[in-house]
């Protein structure tokens, strides 16, 4: 590092040279590139968050209303016993009232289809109404009862009346045929031109031409058009009538046997439509006849269909029918489990934190406890479920599916959160307060109880609420202890009764095949997220308003 060396270094580096300028430019480009990656990463994360919420809101918003039909029901005193109003045949009453809108509908099978518009729960809704209003017996009452799930979805334009009859790959196959010029329109209907070998080996000795397997011959002939296809799905392009046509052709000219002939095979109905109209649709299989659409339309024209906000989503119990399923069971189960969780984890968590922070001597045992708490916070939630199953259910014989056990498992999971939050809050209380209280002769416990804990309480409450919010969303451990029982009534709610929780309800609805449960699930998620947001807002409020800055 002599002066000469430094001198020469300065001399060799010319900052204004082309190469140096390019180099600087390149370095700035690298910097901008890094910035761009950062923005892209944040943008992706934000976009994913936005997609998550829009897709949930989009799917869930529909479940907050229910499509209902207004029924004018005469509560016939001859059919409803005033003493035992619950025992009448409400199905008959409801169906009668509904049938009255459609005097033209006759015949058992048509009636059966008509009643499919009504929800299965309509009877119970009317029954509950009558039981609650026995004075109305003998009068005609107008009641809104839900329609069945497919019509609810139809009214909300979630499912269409007609759906595409053909899948994408079928259409691609079809387009390829069209390109090859195989398809044409003859006498207003579509045909496919191909060659068919009238295979003598397929003409049995017994029965002769009558019994020949023309179907197989047609399929062989089709094969030549689809040499690259392995699946045999292309066979459905040709109408079932093709074999009959071929049979008629051969019957009229037996000399064709053993020859390869050009034929025009009629297309199957869906493909025919696709060729002629450009699209092939069919009735949505969830509806059983086009009449149902006509009936439903006529109800709508008469102004009998309404789509009000559905309080039932919150106040009904679970049901196998999506239009009737509600969250009451899940909400009460989650409430009870969280209550147990709070009652256990809050005092135990605070006691642990206070002991470790204010009283415990620094020794090996307290070290072990601390390491333990940190590790418990990282144990997967499903393992806590295993603990609950093996210990609480199997060893102690506690009841399965009960909010009590759910709450106990959740409490064990919430404990570390509360302990960590409490210790942080206790640490934030300045030592001068402790000294002041000790100085006037307060005992250590009095210092803690009278001064330190009250001052730390906002921080503790914030941590507790956040811990409870986590517990509210916790699913796996509750599944393992069976808190996903199907509870179709809200009569038996109790700490030791089988119950459901909000997240396990979401899980079980998400698993249900009915289309209506997709929006119910999303709605339940929105309710859950609503509670979580509320709890977090309370925590943020507590932190900003009550927490003291020292």
């Amino acid at each position, binding site marked *: 590092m002599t002066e000469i060396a430094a001198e020469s270094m300065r001399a060799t580096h010319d900052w204004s040279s082309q190469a140096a300028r390019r180099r600087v430019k390149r*370095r*700035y480009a690298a*910097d*901008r590139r*890094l*910035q761009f*990656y*950062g923005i892209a*990463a*944040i943008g992706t*994360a934000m976009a*994913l*968050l936005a*997609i*998550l919420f829009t*897709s*949930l809101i989009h799917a869930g918003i529909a479940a907050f209303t229910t499509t209902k039909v207004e029924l004018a029901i005469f509560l016939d005193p001859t059919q409803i016993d005033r003493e035992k109003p619950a025992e009448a045949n409400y199905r008959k009453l409801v169906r009668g009232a509904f049938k009255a809108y459609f005097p033209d509908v006759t015949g058992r099978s048509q009636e059966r289809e008509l009643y499919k518009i009504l929800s299965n729960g309509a009877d119970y809704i009317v029954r509950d109404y009558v039981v609650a209003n026995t004075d109305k017996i003998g009068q005609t009452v107008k009641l809104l009862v839900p329609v069945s799930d497919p019509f609810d979805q139809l009214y909300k334009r979630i499912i269409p009346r007609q759906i595409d009859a053909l899948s994408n790959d079928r259409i691609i196959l079809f387009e390829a045929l069209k390109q090859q010029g195989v398809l044409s329109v003859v006498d207003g209907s579509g045909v496919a031109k191909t060659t068919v070998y009238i295979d003598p080996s397929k003409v049995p000795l017994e029965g002769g031409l009558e019994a020949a397997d023309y179907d197989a011959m047609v399929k062989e002939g089709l094969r030549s058009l689809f040499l690259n296809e392995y699946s045999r799905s292309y066979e459905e392009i040709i109408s079932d009538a093709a074999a009959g046509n071929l049979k008629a052709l051969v019957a009229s000219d037996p000399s064709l046997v053993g020859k390869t002939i050009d034929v025009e095979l009629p297309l199957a109905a869906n493909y025919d439509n696709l060729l002629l109209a450009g699209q092939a649709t069919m009735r949505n299989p969830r509806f059983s006849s086009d009449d149902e659409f006509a009936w439903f339309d006529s109800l709508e024209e008469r102004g009998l269909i309404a789509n009000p906000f559905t309080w039932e989503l919150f106040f009904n119990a679970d049901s196998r029918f999506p239009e009737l399923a509600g969250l009451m069971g899940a909400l009460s189960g989650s409430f009870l489990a969280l209550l147990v969780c709070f009652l256990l984890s809050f*005092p135990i968590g605070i006691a*642990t934190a206070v*002991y*470790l922070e204010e*009283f*415990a001597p620094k020794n090996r045992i307290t070290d*072990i*406890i601390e390491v*333990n*708490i*940190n*590790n*418990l916070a*990282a*144990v*997967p939630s*499903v*393992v806590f*479920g*295993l*603990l609950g*199953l*093996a*210990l609480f259910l*199997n060893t*102690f014989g506690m009841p399965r599916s009960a909010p009590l056990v759910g709450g106990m498992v959740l409490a*064990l999971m919430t*404990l570390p959160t509360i*302990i960590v939050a409490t210790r942080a809050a206790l640490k934030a209380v300045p030592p001068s307060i402790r000294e002041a209280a000790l100085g006037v002769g307060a*005992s250590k416990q009095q210092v803690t109880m009278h001064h330190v804990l009250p001052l730390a309480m906002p921080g503790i409450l914030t941590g507790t609420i956040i811990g409870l919010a986590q517990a509210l*969303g916790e*699913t*796996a451990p509750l*599944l*393992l202890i069976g808190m996903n029982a199907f509870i179709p009534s809200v009569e038996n709610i109790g700490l030791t009764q089988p119950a459901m929780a909000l*997240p396990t309800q*979401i*899980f079980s609805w*998400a698993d249900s095949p009915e289309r209506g449960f997709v929006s119910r699930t999303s709605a339940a*998620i929105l309710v859950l*997220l609503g509670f*979580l947001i509320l709890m*977090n807002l309370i925590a943020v409020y507590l932190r900003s308003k009550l927490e003291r800055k020292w």
Partner: protein
Amino acid sequence: MLSYLLLALLVLTIAAYYAGLAKARSFAAATGPHKSHHSLAGYHGAFVAAWAGIPSFLLVVLWLLFQGPVVDQLLIASLPVERIQNLDAGQLNLLVSEIKSVAKGNIFGEPDEVVLAAAERYNSWNAIASWAMVASVLSLTVVALFVARSMLAPRFRARNHVESITTILMITCSLIAILTTVGIVTSLLYETMRFFSMVSPLEFFFGLNWEPQIAMRDDQVTAGGAFGAIPVYIGTLLIALIAMMVATPIGLYSAIYLTEYASDRLRAVVKPLLEILAGIPTVVYGFFAVLTVAPAMREFGELLGFSIAPNSALAAGGVMGIMLIPFISSLSDDALNAVPQSLRDGSYGLGATKGETITRVLLPAALPGIMGGILLAVSRAIGETMIVVMAAGIIAALTLNPFEPVTTVTVQIVTLLIGDTEFDNPKTLAAFALGLVLFIATLVLNVIALTIVRRYREQYD
């Protein structure tokens, strides 16, 4: 009856408090000037209340825990020998459940004399036990109340006694954390040992075939089920790998931008939004995967001309990655912020651009912290349950193809244990063996990660 007993206990405890309080006040009244007695009257009350309430409450808890098993043992012992000598453990259990169900009044079919008589005994013993509990608990409470009250005196150090009791209670609470861990480890170990007594550990750790469903008949091919868990581990790692491939770049680059480039205003907006991602319950992510991500991927695959299974590893792993973004981002954020300003200044002082400072100085310096964060995220990923239960497969396929469905440890635990569970077949116990593997794996990852992070922090403290 239990709630009435607890209510009575509560009332007696409150009464004990006032009994102590009243006696302490009488000293004050008798001796006149203050400071002649040691503790405030309230502490005398609390002392009596603690002695009246706490031992009795513990007695109730213990009684409840042991009444069931003890009565069961008595019941089995009371059954005629010729009836039970030929039964194995399972059949005996069945008989006991039958007796209990009859005792509850759910009589199906024609239970025989022995069962009816046993059910009657069972009911009467339970009734006796319950009344015995009420009697012993209440008498214990009353005796403790009077003994404790008789100990009070003007110079009695009630405050010190109450504080000792409080300290003992606090220590007990602190031990719950340890007891939880002990409970997890022993229950997992115990059930796993039982599992290994039925299925060889060699098969479990190295077998390639996982078909835990128990056959209905003995002569079926998978009569005992197959418990080679390698495909399950591979599936778990595949999904975790996909998740990390999504979460690591997005989380890391977000953290870099937020700590080094972003304005305070952008940070104030973006950080809470990222926190929202962390606060969403995993069951919601699972549904999001099923509702939106998997169909979108499927359509995208169709567009490109190959098929993606609806429950592909890609969909489950991808959504899990979204969940882990805030995790990686906040831990990387911490690591980058922990790099001292002097290092930055040193780099800028040499004329380095911001980008060069980040890639050449900050990232290498923060690397241990970031690695620790990534390891913690991996531990989260392999322990995550609901996303994979809803979006991944159940069949254990030995594949690394991300477009195919694979299964994970957590999925298997949940599927094996959902529904009715009996603790006597390898299918149920296999879940505990998997749980033990999961517990150990996450524990090891966490310990390593926390050690790395702690060393890193100490380096710059």
